[in-house]
């Protein structure tokens, strides 16, 4: 089966990569798999209903199989995307004709006029693709599904990631993800969740659920250190692309959506600065600020301004503001005091261990390391490796023995090689201090 192409470009206009980036034939099909598979799936599932999900997947997969065979023999068609759509439509029509059960169950229900040609009913226009994907987002973000299942479904259906890639992202195996997806689809079917936009009365609450899953998808790409940097970028890009779909539709374009998008822009502006050429993570304070992406920072400004209309102050607003201050290159007390106050606000709305740790880092920048150590030790997060990384940082230079002890504990608790490499670098710093007699 096709592995989705990972050669996706980091494209700042957030649209599809321009055609000159994908000139080469062998790169084209994996690329199209990534951009078109998900569109075909969304349109087919919306057309036939969730109960025919496997059917839609078969059609989409077959379409790409046929493309691989045909293009390999005869060369590229003039309009590859149009070619894929035509094949998908024909496949759908053939299968509808051939499959008696399908015919009985779906054709009668969906196509009221028996004489009409189902081909004409599958609408792969740009508008219908967008609508289908947007509605699919709401169907997936249904509260009956666990957050883990929602993200797996988004990655599979709306982003076109392979089962293996999703398994990698969740640090688990293919079987687990396969089961998770199957169970989630079963739940959607049995709950008869409709693939439609919620009513205007319901939409605010439902947008929140969609935003949560997009936020987590973005974070999966941005923070988790268990996959390569290309895949991480892809996760972030996909989360941004789907958030833009919400922004483009006036029914779902809420200030909190703009705020989430601004936050994503600010964070991803550091993508190239936070990973070195070996794929190792570079901590914020050690990044080359010249590599911060101005274009994305400006985009963030635009959407943060847009998010400020109305009275709503979501946690995304606060996080976007924190993101904004992180794009300021000057390492001033003012900057960190603002960040500290925003972390305070964020904690008032919602506690999370990472927020508590980040707040304590900001506190050290404003009030000094001694005050921060006192506060850090009260956090009660001794099982969290990042807690020990923070204390390691705070003790470095003053009490190096303690710093080493914390960093060694962090090393034991860390879950991935990349994290361990980062902690080893921190340890090296402490030893450098030690050898200078500080």
């Amino acid at each position, binding site marked *: 089966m096709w592995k989705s192409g990972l050669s996706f470009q980091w494209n700042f206009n957030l649209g599809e990569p321009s055609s000159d980036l994908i000139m080469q034939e062998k790169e084209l099909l994996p690329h199209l798999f990534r951009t078109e598979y998900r569109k075909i799936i969304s349109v087919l599932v919306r057309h036939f209903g969730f109960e025919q999900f496997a059917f839609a997947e078969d059609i989409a997969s077959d379409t790409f199989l046929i493309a691989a065979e045909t293009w390999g023999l005869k060369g590229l068609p003039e309009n590859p995307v149009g070619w894929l759509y035509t094949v998908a439509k024909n496949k759908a029509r053939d299968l509808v004709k051939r499959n008696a059960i399908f015919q009985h169950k779906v054709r009668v229900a969906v196509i009221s006029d028996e004489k009409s040609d189902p081909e004409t009913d599958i609408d792969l226009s740009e508008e219908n693709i967008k609508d289908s994907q947007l509605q699919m987002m709401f169907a997936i973000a249904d509260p009956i599904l666990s957050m883990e299942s929602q993200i797996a479904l988004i990655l599979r259906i709306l982003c076109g990631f392979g089962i293996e890639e999703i398994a990698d992202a969740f640090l688990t195996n293919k079987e687990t993800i396969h089961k998770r997806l199957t169970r989630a689809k079963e739940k959607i079917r049995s709950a008869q969740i409709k693939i439609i936009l919620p009513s205007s009365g319901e939409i605010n609450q439902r947008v929140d659920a969609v935003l949560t899953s997009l936020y987590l998808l973005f974070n999966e790409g941005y923070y988790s250190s268990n996959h390569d940097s290309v895949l991480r970028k892809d996760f972030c890009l996909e989360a941004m692309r789907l958030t833009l779909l919400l922004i483009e539709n006036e029914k779902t374009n809420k200030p909190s959506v703009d705020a989430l998008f601004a936050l994503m822009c600010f964070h991803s502006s550091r993508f190239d600065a936070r990973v070195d050429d070996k794929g190792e993570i570079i901590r914020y304070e050690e990044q080359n600020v010249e590599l911060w992406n101005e274009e994305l920072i400006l985009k963030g400004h635009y959407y943060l301004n847009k998010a400020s209309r109305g009275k709503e102050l979501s946690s995304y607003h606060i996080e976007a503001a924190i993101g904004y201050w992180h794009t300021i290159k000057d390492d001033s007390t003012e900057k960190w005091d603002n960040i500290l106050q925003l972390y*305070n606000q964020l904690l*008032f709305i919602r506690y999370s261990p990472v927020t*508590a740790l980040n707040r304590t880092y900001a506190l050290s920048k404003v009030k000094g390391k001694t005050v921060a150590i006192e506060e850090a030790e009260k956090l*009660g997060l001794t099982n969290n490796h990042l807690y020990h990384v923070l204390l390691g940082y705070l003790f470095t230079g003053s009490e190096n023995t303690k710093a080493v002890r914390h960093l060694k504990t962090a090393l034991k608790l860390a879950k991935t090689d990349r994290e361990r490499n980062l902690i080893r670098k921190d340890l090296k710093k402490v030893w450098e201090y030690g050898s200078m007699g500080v």
Partner: protein
Amino acid sequence: MNEFLLIFRRDFKTNGIQPSPEQLQNMMKEWQNWMGSIAARNKLANSGNRLSDEGKVVKPGAIVTNGPYVEIKEAIGGYIIIKAESMDEAAEISKGCPILTIGGNVEVRTIVPMEL
């Protein structure tokens, strides 16, 4: 883990000891930092409210007097609810409250859980 109500009181009346607007402004940040420190331990149950110094006291016999503090100098300026293992821990947390730096005090009370 129990919940505790922290009630902040200070003298709003006596002239000459009232903080200047500038001092109050600076104190805002200290309040945020103190509450942030509680929240960072996941022990802030409710960030409570600040109270204005206007108020009335209603007594039996339809007697309504102006001001919440006609007979005493100290008045309640605000409250928050925290989570703590014990009254001692709640009292310990209260020691960092900025109101103590301007002559106020914190009353710590255990919230009795609602019987269901």
